[in-house]
C-alpha cells in the first residue's frame, strides 16, 4: 500500500464527504454468527466527536469527488476548481477493515460524485460493500448512498449488502431544486427511494414465511435536506420532512444548515453564518413529531410558518395553548405529560412509575430530574404552591428566558437580528 498516496486521497475524499450530516449506525440487526468480524445490533456507538461536537461513528468518505453534475450547493460540482481523487475498491475495503479492527469506527458510509453515469457509479459502490461482506466476512455497519437516477436492479443489489441506504433531497422545495440543480430531475431522487421502500416491504413480508430470506437494508433509508440555502420556511422544511417520513417510510430525515462553500449569486455569500440554531430547532421539532405525539400542523402552519429561535418548539406551542394547562402530573395520561415543556420522555416514564407509590411533589420531581424552571408554569402536583399568578404567555416566556442559559445565546442575539 502506498501510504502517502492513500493519505492524500483520504484527506480529499473525507473532506468532501463531511457535509453529509448523517452518522447514525444504529437500528441494524446484523449479528456476528460465523466468527467473522463485527457486529451491528442495537445501539450505534460514537467513537469520537468532531471539534464541532458531531458524532464520529462511521468512516465517511466519497469513492471519488469527480462529478459530471454541477449542483450549486456542492463542493464537488464540476465547475469548482478543486483537487480531485478516486479510491480503488480494494483501498476502501482495507481502510474500513483496519479502522474497524482498532475500534475506531462502527462501519463505512460511502458516497460518491457521479462519474460517467449513475449506474456506473452505483455499481462501484456496491462492489465495495459486496467485497466487505463476502470476502472479509464483515458484519459492521454499511451505509451506501443511492445515486440519483440509478436503476432499480442496482438498488435491489445495494440493499443486499448495505444496512442503510440514503438519497439526499438536499433542497426541500421543487422550485429550489430547479434553481440550484437544474440538470437534476426530481424524479431521479424519488425512483430509488421508492424502490428501497418497496423492497423493504417485500422483505418484511417474505421473512414472515421464509425465515432465511436474505436481509434487505435492515436499518432502512434516510434522507437529508439543506436548510438556509434557498429562503425556504421552516414550514416548507418540516412539511416535506413529514411527507418523506410517511410516503417512503424514512427512518430519519436529517437537516443540515447550509455551509457556504462557494461564491454563487443564487446562494448565501461565503462567510455567512451557518444557521446552527435553526438546525437545532428543526431537530427538536422532528423529535416532537416522532416521539411526543405532535402533528406537524400544531407546530407549524400558515399563522406560524417559522419556529421561534429564542425558545424551543414545545414551549412555543404550549404558550400558544395555555388553555390546556396546568396539567396535574399525578393524574394526567402519558400523552398529556409529554406535552409539558421541560419534561422529556425519560422523566415522563419515571413519573408514571413513581406516582403509583405516592403522590409526587416538587421535591420528588426535582430529584427525578425534571427541568422545573420551564415545567413549573405548566403543571400542578401534590403541593399547594404552584404558579398561579403570571399566567400571561409573554410573562412566562420572559421569566423562563431570564432563568435559563442557552448554549446558543450568542447566536440567538446574532441570528435574531437576521430573522427580524
Amino acid at each position, binding site marked *: 500500500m502506498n501510504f502517502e498516496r492513500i493519505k492524500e486521497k483520504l484527506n480529499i475524499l473525507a473532506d468532501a464527504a463531511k457535509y453529509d450530516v448523517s452518522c447514525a449506525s444504529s437500528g441494524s440487526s446484523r449479528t456476528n454468527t460465523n466468527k467473522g468480524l463485527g457486529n451491528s445490533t442495537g445501539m450505534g*456507538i460514537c*467513537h469520537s466527536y468532531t471539534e*464541532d*461536537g458531531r458524532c*464520529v461513528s462511521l468512516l465517511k468518505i466519497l469513492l471519488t469527488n469527480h462529478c459530471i453534475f454541477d449542483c450549486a450547493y456542492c463542493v464537488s460540482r464540476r465547475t469548482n476548481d478543486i483537487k480531485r481523487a478516486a479510491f480503488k475498491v480494494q483501498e476502501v475495503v482495507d481502510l474500513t477493515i483496519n479502522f474497524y479492527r482498532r*475500534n475506531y469506527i462502527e462501519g463505512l458510509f460511502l458516497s460518491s460524485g457521479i462519474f460517467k453515469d449513475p449506474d456506473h457509479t452505483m455499481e462501484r459502490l456496491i462492489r465495495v460493500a459486496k467485497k466487505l461482506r463476502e470476502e472479509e466476512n464483515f458484519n459492521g455497519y454499511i451505509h451506501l448512498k443511492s445515486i440519483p437516477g440509478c436503476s432499480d436492479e442496482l438498488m435491489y443489489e445495494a440493499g443486499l449488502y448495505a444496512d442503510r441506504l440514503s438519497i439526499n433531497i438536499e433542497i426541500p422545495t421543487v422550485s429550489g431544486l430547479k434553481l440550484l440543480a437544474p440538470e437534476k430531475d426530481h424524479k431521479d431522487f424519488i425512483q430509488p427511494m421508492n424502490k428501497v421502500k418497496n423492497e423493504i416491504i417485500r422483505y418484511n413480508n417474505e421473512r414472515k414465511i421464509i425465515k432465511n430470506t436474505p436481509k434487505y437494508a435492515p436499518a432502512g433509508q434516510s434522507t437529508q435536506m439543506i436548510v438556509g440555502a434557498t429562503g425556504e420556511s421552516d414550514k416548507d422544511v418540516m412539511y416535506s420532512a413529514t411527507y418523506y417520513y410517511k410516503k417512503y417510510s424514512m427512518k430519519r430525515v436529517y437537516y443540515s444548515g447550509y455551509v457556504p462553500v462557494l461564491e454563487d449569486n443564487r446562494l448565501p455569500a461565503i462567510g455567512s453564518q*451557518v444557521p446552527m440554531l435553526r438546525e437545532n430547532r428543526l431537530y427538536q421539532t422532528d423529535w416532537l413529531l416522532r416521539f411526543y405525539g405532535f402533528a406537524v400542523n400544531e407546530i407549524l402552519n400558515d399563522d406560524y410558518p417559522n419556529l421561534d429561535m429564542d425558545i424551543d418548539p414545545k414551549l412555543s406551542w404550549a404558550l400558544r395553548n395555555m388553555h390546556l394547562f396546568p396539567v396535574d402530573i399525578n393524574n394526567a395520561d402519558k400523552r398529556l405529560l409529554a406535552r409539558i415543556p421541560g419534561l422529556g420522555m425519560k422523566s415522563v416514564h419515571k413519573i408514571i412509575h413513581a406516582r403509583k407509590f405516592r403522590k409526587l411533589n416538587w421535591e420528588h420531581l426535582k430529584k427525578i430530574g425534571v427541568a422545573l424552571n420551564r415545567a413549573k408554569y405548566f403543571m400542578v402536583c401534590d403541593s399547594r404552591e404552584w404558579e398561579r399568578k403570571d399566567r400571561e404567555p409573554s410573562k412566562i416566556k420572559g421569566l423562563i428566558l431570564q432563568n435559563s442559559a442557552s448554549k446558543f445565546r450568542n447566536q440567538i442575539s446574532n441570528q435574531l437580528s437576521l430573522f427580524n
Partner: protein
Amino acid sequence: MMNQTTLIYDGSFNGFLTCVFQAFDEKLKLVAIQKNKQVQNELFSESTTVFTNIEQAKRVWTGIRNKSFNAISTIYFAYLSENEGVEMMLYTYIKKLMAKRGTQVDFSDETILYIHQLAKKVGREKHRVEAFVRFQLTKDQIYFANIEPDFDVLPLISKHFKNRYADQQWLIYDAKRNYGIFYNLDGVEIVSLDIKELHYNRTQQSNVFTSGEYAYQELWNNYFKSTNIKSRINRKLHTQHVPKRYWKYLSEKKEAV
C-alpha cells in the same frame, strides 16, 4: 437489644451476595459491609468475616431475579461503581425490593433513586469505554488497549468485544486495577500483566507494535482532522462528549495531550 454487626468479605460480588444472604438468614442488624482490604473498625459493633459461598450467593441472585429482572443488572452495575458504602446502600435496596414487588421503580424513594442513578453512571462509563478503547496491533498479532476507567467495567464490556472481534486476538488492560481481559479466539480469560510501560497513544513510538500500526494511526488522525467543519466549531460541546481524561488513550487526540 441485638448486637450490631459489621460483615467483612473478600471483595468479590459473590462475596457481597453471601453477606446479604447471611444478614437475611440470621436476621442481623448490619451497620456495615466492608471489603477485607479496607476494613475500618466500627465502634460498638462486632465484626464477622464472611466466606464466599456460591450456593448462598446464587440464592440471593435468584431471589432478586424473581422479584425483578431489571433490578438484577441495576444491582450489579451499581456494585461495580466501587463507591464507598455502596454495599450497605445495596443491602437496603435489596431489603426494600424483597418487602414489596415493584419497588425498584419507586423513584420517589431516596435509596432506590440513588442506586438507580449510580447504575446509570456505571452504564455510561461502560458505553464510553466501549467507544474509546483504541486497539494497537502488537508484533505477535494481538490487538492491545489500555484503559483506566472510573469504575470497574471490564466484566461489563467483555461480551461486547467478544461478539464484535471474534476473529482477532485482543487484550484490554485496566491499568488502574491491574488486570485485563484477553480473548484468545476461543474465550475470554482474566489476565494480570507486569507492564512496566503503559502504552498510551504517545507520539513516541514503541517497538512492541507493528510498523503498519503507526501508519493506520496517522491515517485515522488525518481522517479525524478532515471531518471538522471550521465554521461550526464548538469546543465546549466537544469536550463534553469526549472528557479530557480519555484523551491520552485516543490516537486522534495525542497531539492535544
